[in-house]
């Protein structure tokens, strides 16, 4: 299999079968396919880069130890996101509430204006778009966890309602409802940008 090319379905099936037979290299290749998405998802869930890294390490090890529970290679992404979600929720339950640090990190670079310094138009320039996006991240971080995870998986990771339903273990209708509620809240909160 060529190194940098994305494997096709048959190759993924083969990699999963090999990984389940104890092939660590095949497992590593599978993780590489999803590592960027998983890191972003953990960051969205936890609102903290450093905690996301710790949790992602647990996600990888958990995935290796639970590989036998993966029933079909097609579900690999969903299966990994499900493990990541469980680990993030466990982590959130254990930690003492702290403010989200995503904005703190961005602010430390000096690239983000103080809250309230906004254009009164729909953001048009790159800088304005970026500030709007950072505001959005903060608002997403303030959503209830069950709305946050579903909204992020739908709008940032572009997963289908059916996949999200499998990841969060709730019916599609529930997922749709959560995403709709999150969207309404977020649209309201983004209003000042208009």
């Amino acid at each position, binding site marked *: 299999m060529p190194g940098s090319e994305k494997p*096709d379905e*048959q*190759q993924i*099936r*083969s990699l999963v*079968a*090999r990984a*389940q*037979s*104890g*092939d*660590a290299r095949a*497992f*590593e290749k599978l*993780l*590489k396919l999803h*590592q*960027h998405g998983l*890191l*972003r998802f953990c960051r969205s869930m936890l609102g903290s880069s450093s905690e996301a*890294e710790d949790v*992602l*390490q647990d996600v*990888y*090890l958990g995935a*290796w130890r639970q590989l036998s529970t993966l029933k079909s290679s097609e579900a690999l992404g969903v299966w990994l996101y499900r493990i990541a979600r469980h680990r993030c929720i466990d982590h959130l339950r254990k930690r003492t509430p702290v403010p989200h640090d995503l904005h703190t990190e961005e602010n430390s670079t000096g690239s983000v204006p103080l809250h309230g310094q906004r254009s009164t138009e*729909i*953001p048009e320039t790159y800088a304005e*778009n*970026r500030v*709007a*996006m950072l*505001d*959005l*991240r903060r608002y997403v971080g303030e959503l209830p966890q069950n709305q946050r995870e579903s909204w992020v998986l739908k*709008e*940032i*990771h*572009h997963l289908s309602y059916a996949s999200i339903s499998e990841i969060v273990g709730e019916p599609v209708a529930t997922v*749709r409802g959560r995403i*709709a509620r999150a*969207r*309404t809240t*977020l*649209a309201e909160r*983004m*209003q000042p*940008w*208009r």
Partner: protein
Amino acid sequence: MEVRALPENPYSCERTEDELWSKLSEPADEHEQGCPNCQAQRKRLATLSLAAGQWSAETDSEADEELLGGLLDRVMDRVRTEVRRGVRFTIRITPHGPLMISGYLLLETLRDAVDQLPYISLGSHKILPGELPDTISLSLKIAIEAGQDGTALAQQAREALLTHFAERIGISLGAIDISVEDVIHEH
């Protein structure tokens, strides 16, 4: 147009926010162009859509690449240590005591033998204690490229396994169970 309020729809026309959101990237259709509610809601959702789009399109920084590489390396070190320490097979008992080989090394040998062969892709595979003393048995599933002779390829795989295990490990193999489970079609 009949205007009615749905319980979950805060707007006075029948289009839900969900519908408007899913079509936001497209130009407004005839109804939306004439409906003040839809126009207002499209405008209201546009900012969110723009920001979400930017977030989604954001590429990982070099720092993230480095971070992910380091993280994966650390995890894979742990994984390999765990696997090496997993199942062990006693392959000989000398007057001084037993000689053992980790299942990890045996499986690596199996994979190396099959991976060097053309037209074959290895799927699931395992090692079992052989029926005779000092032997092990192998069981593997392979996929072969379309148009190739499965029996001949399985025979090649068998010979490669015998050679590799003799050279690399130094033991005789018991049963070698090879099944062709898939055909690979060129895309």
